[in-house]
C-alpha cells in the first residue's frame, strides 16, 4: 500500500508544468501507449459506469482473487460493488499518479481543471477509485471539497460516496469529517439525522471501539436533540449486544447527561405509566435496603433523594427530568449486574455501573448544594468541575438518608470499589492498609 500520509503539493513545479503543450486536451495526462495503463483506464471506466448506473450503491469491497481470469475485475451485484484484489494495487497506483500530477500543476491550471465539466468529471472518476481503495489520503478528500465548492459534485452524491467509503473502512475519520463539512452547507432542519445515526451505528457495529463513529454520533446528538428519546432506546439495545465495546457504554453516558442538561423526560401518557415509569429507581431503593413500599409516589421519592429541598428554587420540569434520568441510571446499574450474571465479570459492566452510580450521586449532591448559587447542571468548565469536586469532598453523606444507605451498601463490593468511591465520590471509607 502506498504511503498514507500525502501532503498537499505546493505549486513549486509551476514552470515545469506550464511548458506542457496539450492545454486544450485533458490536463490529466495518461500515457495510452502503455498496456497496463490502458487496462487500468478501462477498469476505472468500468467502476465509473457502475457509479453512473446505480444510484443506490451500498457497499464496496475488495474481493480476494490472486490471478486475472480474463474477466472484468469489477463485480456489481445487488447494489454491492466489488473489485478483485489482483488489480487493486495497479489501479490505485494509476489513479494516484494521475491525481498527483494534477496537484503538481500550477494553481491556475488546477483551477481550470476544476472548472471545466469534462475535466472535473475525469478527476472525480480517479478520486472515486483512489479513495475507495485507500480512504486515508487527505489530499484526495481535499480535491473533492474543491470540486464541491465549484459545484462540480452534488452534496447528496457526496454523502452517498462517503457512506460507501465507510462501508469498506468503518473507522475512516476523513469520511466522517467530510460528512460534517458537507452538512455545514445545509440547514439543520433539512438533514436526515436518523440516517446519520444509522450510518454511525453500522460503522460501530462493524468495528469495535470505533472512536470516529461515536464522536460523529455525539456531533449528531449535539445538533439534533430531538433524537434523545430514540437514542436512549437504541444505545441500550446496542450495549446489550456489544457487551465489551466500552465506546458504546460511554456514548450512552453522554446521551444521559445530555438528556439531563436539556431537562428531558418522557411525558407520562396514562395512569399506568406513572406507576411503572420509575420502577427501576424503586428497585434501586430496595437494593439499598430502603423500604420501597412507602415510596410508591413521586413525592416520596423526591423527599428521599432530596430531603429539605426548597421547591421554589427548582422548576417542576427540572425535578421530573432529575427523576427520569436517575431512573435510567438505576436501570443501567441493574442491567450491568444482570449482564454480569449472564456473561461473567467484564470491565465494561463494572465501569458502566460505576458511571451510572456516579451520575445519581453527583446529581443529588449537585441539587442539594448547588441550588443556592444556581449551579446544578453538569459543569461546563474545568474550574466549575474543580469547584464541584471540592463541594463533593465537603458533603456530609451521613446526614442524607439515601446517600448514606448507598455509601453503606456499596462498601460491600470490595476494596477496589471502595477506593474508587473514595476517589470519585469522596465517600470517605477507611483505607485498609496491608
Amino acid at each position, binding site marked *: 500500500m502506498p504511503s498514507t500520509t500525502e501532503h498537499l503539493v505546493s505549486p513549486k513545479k509551476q514552470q515545469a508544468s506550464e511548458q506542457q503543450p496539450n492545454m486544450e486536451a485533458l490536463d490529466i495526462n495518461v500515457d495510452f501507449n502503455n498496456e497496463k495503463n490502458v487496462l487500468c483506464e478501462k477498469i476505472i471506466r468500468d467502476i465509473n459506469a457502475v457509479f453512473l448506473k446505480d444510484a443506490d450503491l451500498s457497499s464496496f469491497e475488495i474481493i480476494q482473487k*490472486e490471478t486475472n481470469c480474463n474477466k472484468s475485475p469489477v463485480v456489481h451485484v445487488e447494489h454491492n460493488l466489488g473489485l478483485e484484489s489482483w488489480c487493486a494495487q495497479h489501479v490505485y497506483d494509476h489513479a494516484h499518479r494521475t491525481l498527483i500530477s494534477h496537484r503538481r500543476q500550477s494553481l491556475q491550471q488546477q483551477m481550470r481543471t476544476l472548472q471545466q465539466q469534462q475535466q472535473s468529471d475525469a478527476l472525480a472518476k480517479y478520486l472515486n477509485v483512489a479513495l475507495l481503495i485507500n480512504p486515508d489520503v487527505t489530499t484526495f478528500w481535499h480535491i473533492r471539497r474543491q470540486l464541491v465548492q465549484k459545484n462540480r459534485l452534488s452534496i447528496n452524491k457526496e454523502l452517498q460516496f462517503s457512506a460507501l467509503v465507510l462501508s469498506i473502512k468503518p473507522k475512516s475519520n476523513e469520511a466522517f469529517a467530510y460528512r460534517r463539512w458537507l452538512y455545514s452547507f445545509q440547514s439543520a432542519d433539512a438533514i436526515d439525522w436518523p440516517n446519520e445515526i444509522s450510518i454511525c451505528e453500522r460503522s460501530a457495529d462493524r468495528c469495535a471501539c470505533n472512536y470516529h463513529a461515536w464522536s460523529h454520533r455525539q456531533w449528531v446528538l449535539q445538533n439534533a436533540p430531538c433524537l434523545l428519546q430514540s437514542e436512549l432506546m437504541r444505545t441500550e439495545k446496542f450495549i446489550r449486544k456489544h457487551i465489551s465495546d466500552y465506546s458504546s457504554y460511554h456514548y450512552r453516558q453522554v446521551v444521559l447527561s445530555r438528556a439531563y442538561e436539556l431537562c428531558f423526560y418522557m411525558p407520562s401518557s396514562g395512569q399506568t405509566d406513572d406507576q411503572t415509569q420509575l420502577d427501576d429507581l424503586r428497585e434501586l431503593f430496595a437494593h439499598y435496603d430502603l423500604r420501597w413500599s412507602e415510596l410508591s409516589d413521586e413525592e416520596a421519592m423526591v423527599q428521599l433523594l432530596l430531603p429539605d429541598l426548597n421547591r421554589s428554587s427548582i422548576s417542576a420540569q427540572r425535578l421530573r427530568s432529575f427523576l427520569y434520568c436517575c431512573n435510567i441510571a438505576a436501570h443501567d446499574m441493574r442491567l450491568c449486574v444482570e449482564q454480569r450474571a449472564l456473561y461473567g465479570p467484564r470491565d465494561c459492566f463494572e465501569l458502566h455501573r460505576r458511571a451510572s452510580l456516579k451520575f445519581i450521586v453527583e446529581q443529588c449532591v449537585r441539587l442539594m448544594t448547588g441550588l443556592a448559587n444556581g449551579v446544578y447542571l453538569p459543569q461546563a468548565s474545568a474550574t466549575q468541575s474543580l469547584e464541584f469536586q471540592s463541594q463533593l469532598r465537603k458533603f456530609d453523606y451521613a446526614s442524607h438518608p439515601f446517600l448514606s444507605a448507598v455509601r453503606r451498601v456499596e462498601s460491600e463490593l470490595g476494596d477496589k470499589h471502595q477506593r474508587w468511591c473514595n476517589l470519585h465520590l469522596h465517600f470517605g471509607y477507611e483505607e485498609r492498609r496491608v
Partner: protein
Amino acid sequence: MVKLFALSVFYKGESEARLLKTTSDLQSFSFFQRGTVNEFMSFASKTIVERTPQALRQSIKQDTYMCHVYVRADNLAGVLIADHEYPQRVAHTLVTKILDDFTAKVSADQWPNGTEVSIAFDSLPIFLARYQDPKEADPLTKMQNDLDETKIILKNTIEAVLERGEKLDDMVVKSEKLSMQSKAFYKTAKKTNSCCSFT
C-alpha cells in the same frame, strides 16, 4: 458482539458426517465475503463433527469465533457457530434442545441417508433468530440444569481437534467443498493473520 452465525444438524456416519439441515445468518459480513464465510463454516462444522467422539461436548475457539458441538450417543450431532462472547452454557443448552426437537420431528431411520432436501425440519432459522439474545434461553437453561458445564471440552483452535498427522492447510487445499475463491481467501487470511483486513 454477542452473535449466533450458524446452526447445523449432522448425522455422524462411519466414514463421514452427513449434513441433514443447516441455516446461517451472515448479515454482519460484507456482501462478497458471505459465500466464502458460509463455505468455511460448513467445512469447519463437518470437520469438527467427524473428529468429536460420541456422547461428547466440545467448544472450539478459532479467532473470535466459537464452535460448539455435541455428538450424541446415537450419532446425531449439532453444531452451533457463535461469537466468542456468546455464553457457552446457553450455546450447549440450545444445541441439546435442537437435537431433541429434531429427534421428535424426524424419525431415526431417515438420518443415515437423509439430505437437506429430504429432511423436513424447518425450525432452525427460528431458533437462530430467537436465540440471538441469550436471555431468551433463560427458561431453557433452568429446565436443563443437568447440563454439566465441567464436561464440556474446551479447545483453543481447530488444529487442536484434528487427529495426529492432519494439517488444516492440507485439508483446505484438498477439500472439494471449498471454492477457489475460498481457498485464496484462506491463504491471504493466514498471511495477514486476520480474516477481515484486506488491501
